[in-house]
């Protein structure tokens, strides 16, 4: 690293502004890198902006995304380049020079403030691609209401250059003759987050998409469901905008289809179809939803529960049959689907058909790949390897998100975090980072009376067209403690902001009220002003006059003016009581504790060590490696034992890593930045102090009690088979494999994700070593998602026979005169038949490590029902826990493949490094504060706090509560519950809120 450092720029280019690109950019920027976030579209957000809810939690997609968009918009280190594409690349890792073409947008990003006046005037209407052409937009448009940048754009394909928009734009933002521009970026690394393009179902003519209006694709259905979609969230079908009574979902459209050449599985469509069916059911429980599938692939964490819930709670019907064709009834425009159940062909009528269209590589990616010099796989996705899952074939260029392989959002976000640890040159010395805006020395206000300045924004005419600004200003001027009122056409413009700072200094203002648009998007701009003017940032209050007043009372200017006065009064009342808040900070010990010396733990440890941090790696057993020690082949070319040796040698030789074998964690205390851990090993105990914890405790193989396991040496587990194969001890002529042993059962409802791939892998190995051996695989669903489908097909091609079983028809294994006999039901031939294999191989489930419970208790973090660690937000990142500074990765989180384990370990390392890289950790000032005099020691707050931020201590022989500021997330739940009002929340104090209430209600 050191010899490279000379050329290292601290800039990174992220290509693709979907959730993958956004997440990677935010994390890189937080680490102090300058980030260029480039997207070919007019707005960032990618596909996620189009989704209604997101599985597995069914959160609102746009809410989740908007949170991130806001962060991007406010991050000083991120430069967003929309309408842009890469034209050329020069140089090498650490020193790239990228030529970027920016196509004309025709609207100036600096000037346009998103008022939308132009849209009303534009006479040209065209289909809105964002709403999948189910509604219309104008030639000048913004992609979606919440889009970032909040700048309109003109679509020159339809624009008539009539100039109406130019005329109406108060801010002179439109230039119909704008031309494209080129720029050159110098960056040290590039992250590709190009996402996917949806499969075009027109290519599957038998489903009638494009011919029959009531056949829609899944993204269209997402838009139909969306509250800001073409039908405002009412469930309607396109042809007659009638509520559909019966909806069919057809799976694998454009995936797992050799006729189309898309052989891989798109991995997400089973889950999203279930989600969409649930959403339809939630809108109207009488709607009947049927999902037609070949295999249901819900192998993510707790996804099987989601599937079960769809069946049991929502009554979604699942039919195992690929739909052969869709026809339309000419009179009703209903659709007739042909499928087969129990080997009986059927035709059934539906009012709406949703095609679960798969993910294809991003459009025109071959061209970009050529420019960048990276390899694509045979399907056009980015080529990666098992043991280097985020590296492209070119050093310095990394990949994350759906472009690496079709995947869902949580996996995407995890991978985006993972990329960061490889991309970033994290350096504990602050100098190499782009410093965020340095806070000015704050003025001491302790002796000052409140002197409030009120700054009112017309927002062009957005506010002033409705609210009488003069009247408002006059009113504000009379409010107590207000010493200055000013108007601005655009308060947020750079010019105005300078003016505000000037006024603050000039007039000695010490509390600021802005009357303008919502604080959710613009607060940070004004916080900067405060800092520049030397005021504590908590002395600002914003009255939301645009989104929550002018725009919602367009026809009632007088009442809107009254309301605006009231809103300003409310803000002034709070402002008067605002006090400076110091952001608490904790010292960070730049050392990590990693628990578990399997692949996950070692990978995370190595990455942190590479970044220069000290790591304590604690392994319970006598050897490093965990399950990887038993894996001799992978579905790919690498040799896992070689890789393992390599990793272990790197770990052992790293001066930054202390390995403790045969050791266990006895106790952990403390908080982020400063934990104390007690280790026990055979020579005694040891105490370690560290800033973060990474839990990589792995998982266990289920010990089967089924199918004569343990009673006959001819019944073995898949792992044992792999040992035999590797040691050359395999000699069976007929093998039966049974899937889902101990998984997807009542006791352990979840899917173990890896075992289908494991069987396919070993079956292929058998066929390689002994082609004449017959292999039968009994499965419930074959879950070879993503590119693993290739190997499933390869196994079929080699003659491995896959036979589906249902719980009612499980195969039975018995011994007759010492010989194995398997009796099973074949559902297509509809016959029982028997086999006499030499070996029965059980795919034992992967179950949670029982040690997890101890860690959960010691650290106060939750577990899933089946005992895996539970992350904070299952629909986003996989690595964070509710406990600040504690991260999870690998099998300890849920069953996963090697490449996924590595990716997640990278992500955990990245999140850990973000903390470790800071010598002091600044914490939001809006934390809870406890007045110890008032506290009665009832412990109510302690129990309520989800983050374990409240602790109790003895004080003068009295139990009192205190807040661990590093853990508090500012929800205020404790404050609302404290019976003695001992708790307050900075910036949202009880007194301030009461003052707001009173102000709101004065006559």
């Amino acid at each position, binding site marked *: 690293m050191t010899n490279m450092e000379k050329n290292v720029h601290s800039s990174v280019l992220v290509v693709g502004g979907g959730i993958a690109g956004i997440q990677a950019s935010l994390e890189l920027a937080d680490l102090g890198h300058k980030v260029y976030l480039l997207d070919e579209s007019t707005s960032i957000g990618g596909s996620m902006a189009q989704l209604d809810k997101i599985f597995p*939690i069914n*959160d*609102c997609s*746009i*809410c989740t995304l*908007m*949170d991130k968009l806001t962060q991007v918009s406010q991050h000083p280190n991120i430069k967003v380049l929309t309408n842009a594409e890469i034209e050329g690349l020069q140089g090498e890792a650490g020193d790239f020079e990228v030529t970027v073409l920016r196509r004309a947008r025709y609207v100036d990003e600096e000037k346009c403030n998103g008022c939308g006046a132009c849209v009303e005037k534009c006479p040209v209407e065209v289909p809105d691609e964002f709403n999948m052409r189910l509604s219309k937009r104008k030639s000048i448009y913004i992609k979606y*209401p*919440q889009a970032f940048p909040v700048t309109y754009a003109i679509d020159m394909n339809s624009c008539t250059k009539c100039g109406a928009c130019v005329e109406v734009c108060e801010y002179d933002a439109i230039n119909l003759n704008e031309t494209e521009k080129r720029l050159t970026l110098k960056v040290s690394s590039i992250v590709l987050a190009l996402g996917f393009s949806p499969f075009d179902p027109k290519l599957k003519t038998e489903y009638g998409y494009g011919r029959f209006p009531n056949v829609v694709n899944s993204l269209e259905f997402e838009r139909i469901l*969306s*509250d*800001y979609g073409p039908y*405002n*969230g009412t469930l309607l079908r396109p042809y007659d905008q009638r509520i559909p009574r019966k909806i069919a979902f057809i799976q694998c459209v454009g995936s797992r289809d050799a006729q189309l050449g898309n052989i891989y599985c798109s991995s997400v469509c089973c889950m999203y179809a279930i989600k969409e069916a649930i959403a339809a059911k939630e809108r109207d429980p009488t709607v009947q939803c049927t999902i037609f599938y070949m295999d249901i692939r819900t192998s993510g964490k707790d996804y099987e529960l989601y599937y079960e819930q769809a069946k049991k709670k929502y009554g979604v019907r699942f039919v195992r049959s690929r739909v052969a064709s869709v026809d339309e009834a000419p009179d009703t425009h209903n659709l007739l689907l042909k499928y087969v159940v129990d080997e009986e062909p059927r035709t059934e009528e539906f009012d709406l058909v949703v095609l679960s269209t798969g993910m294809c590589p991003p459009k025109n990616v071959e061209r970009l790949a050529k420019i960048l010099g990276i390899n694509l796989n045979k399907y056009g996705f980015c080529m990666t390897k098992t043991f280097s899952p985020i590296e492209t074939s070119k050093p310095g260029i990394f990949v994350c998100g759906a472009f690496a392989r079709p995947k869902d959002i949580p996996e995407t976000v995890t991978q985006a975090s993972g990329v960061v640890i490889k991309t970033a040159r994290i350096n504990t010395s602050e100098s190499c980072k782009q410093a965020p805006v340095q806070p000015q020395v704050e003025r001491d206000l302790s002796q000052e009376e409140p002197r409030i300045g009120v700054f009112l924004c017309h927002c062009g005419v957005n506010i002033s067209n409705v609210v009488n600004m003069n009247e408002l200003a006059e009113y504000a001027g009379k409010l107590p403690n207000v010493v200055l009122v000013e108007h601005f056409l655009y308060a947020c413009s750079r010019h105005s902001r300078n003016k505000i700072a000037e006024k603050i200094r000039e007039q000695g203002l010490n509390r600021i009220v802005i009357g303008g648009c*919502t*604080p*959710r998007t613009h607060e940070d701009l004004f916080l900067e002003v405060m800092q520049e003017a030397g005021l504590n940032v908590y002395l600002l209050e914003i009255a*939301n006059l*645009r*989104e*929550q*007043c*002018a*725009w*919602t*009372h*367009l*026809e*009632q200017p007088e*009442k*809107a003016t009254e*309301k605006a006065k*009231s*809103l300003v009064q*409310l803000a002034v009342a709070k402002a008067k009581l605002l006090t400076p808040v110091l952001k608490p900070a904790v010292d960070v010990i730049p050392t990590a504790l990693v628990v578990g010396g399997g692949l996950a733990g070692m990978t995370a440890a190595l990455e942190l060590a590479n970044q220069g941090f000290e790591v304590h790696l604690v392994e319970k057993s006598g050897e490093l490696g965990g399950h990887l020690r038993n894996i001799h082949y992978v579905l790919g070319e690498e040799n896992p034992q070689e890789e393992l040796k390599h990793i272990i040698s790197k770990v052992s030789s790293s001066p930054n890593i202390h390995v403790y074998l045969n050791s266990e964690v006895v106790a952990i205390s403390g908080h982020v930045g400063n934990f104390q851990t007690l280790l026990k090993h055979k020579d005694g105990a040891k105490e370690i102090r560290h800033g973060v914890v990474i839990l990589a405790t792995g998982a266990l193989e289920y010990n089967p009690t089924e199918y004569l396991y343990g009673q006959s040496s001819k019944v073995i587990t898949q792992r044992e088979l792999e040992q035999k194969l590797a040691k050359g001890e395999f000699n069976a002529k007929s093998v039966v494999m049974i899937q889902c042993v101990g998984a997807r059962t009542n006791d352990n409802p979840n899917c173990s994700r890896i075992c289908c791939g494991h069987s396919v892998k070993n079956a292929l190995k058998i066929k390689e070593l002994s082609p004449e051996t017959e292999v039968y695989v009994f499965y419930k669903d074959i879950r070879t998602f993503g590119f693993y489908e290739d190997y499933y097909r390869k196994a079929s091609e080699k003659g491995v026979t896959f036979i589906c079983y249902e719980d009612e028809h499980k195969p039975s294994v018995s011994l007759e005169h010492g010989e194995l006999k398997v009796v099973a039901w074949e559902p297509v031939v509809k016959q029982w038949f028997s086999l006499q294999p030499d070996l029965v191989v059980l795919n034992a489930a992967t179950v949670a490590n029982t040690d997890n419970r101890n860690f959960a208790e010691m650290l106060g973090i939750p577990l899933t029902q089946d005992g895996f660690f539970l992350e*904070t937000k299952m629909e986003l990142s996989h690595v964070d826990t*509710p406990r600040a500074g504690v991260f999870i990765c690998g099998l300890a989180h849920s069953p996963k493949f090697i490449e996924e384990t590595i990716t997640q370990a990278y992500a955990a390392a990245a999140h850990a490094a973000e903390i470790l890289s800071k010598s002091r950790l600044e914490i939001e000032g*809006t934390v809870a504060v406890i007045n110890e005099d008032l506290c009665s020691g009832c412990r109510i707050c302690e129990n*309520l706090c*989800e983050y374990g931020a409240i602790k109790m201590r003895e004080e003068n022989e009295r139990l009192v509560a205190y807040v661990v500021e590093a853990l508090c*997330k*500012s*929800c*205020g*739940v404790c*404050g*609302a*519950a404290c019976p003695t*009002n001992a708790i307050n*929340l900075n910036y*949202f104090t*009880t007194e301030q*809120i*009461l003052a*707001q*209430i*009173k102000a*709101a*209600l004065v*006559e």
Partner: protein
Amino acid sequence: MEPGNFEPKIIGFLCNWCAYAGADLAGISRIQYPPNIRIIRVMCSGRVDPLFVLEALKNGADGVLIGGCHPPSDCHYLSGNFKAWRRTLLLKRVLAQFGIEPERLRIEWISASEGDKFARVVKEMVEELKKLGPNPLKLTEEAK
């Protein structure tokens, strides 16, 4: 006060992440609703102390709206919305004991994409409160 042109006053405590954003979206989408509500932003619906509700009613609010994120897990703080919900149920009982119609207090889950829902809730509240008439506490205060 004449019942005919009675304009109820509503205090809305909206959580920053969902309901407040939903109210913003109503504006962005130019959805119109009556101007009777005053919104106070809190980080989480779980921050709403019963005291705030009581003070609002005592000071003459005709209705109070608490807006949070959809359960089970839209809540930015995992479960603040549940806590608000439990508290609201209790509080409604308390209000009834004071002779205040529990319908004056309303809790709603409004996501950042539900601008129309926010507007609808405000409209509904205004209509219902018009039917209920002014807050009885206000009348007794006035009587004093």
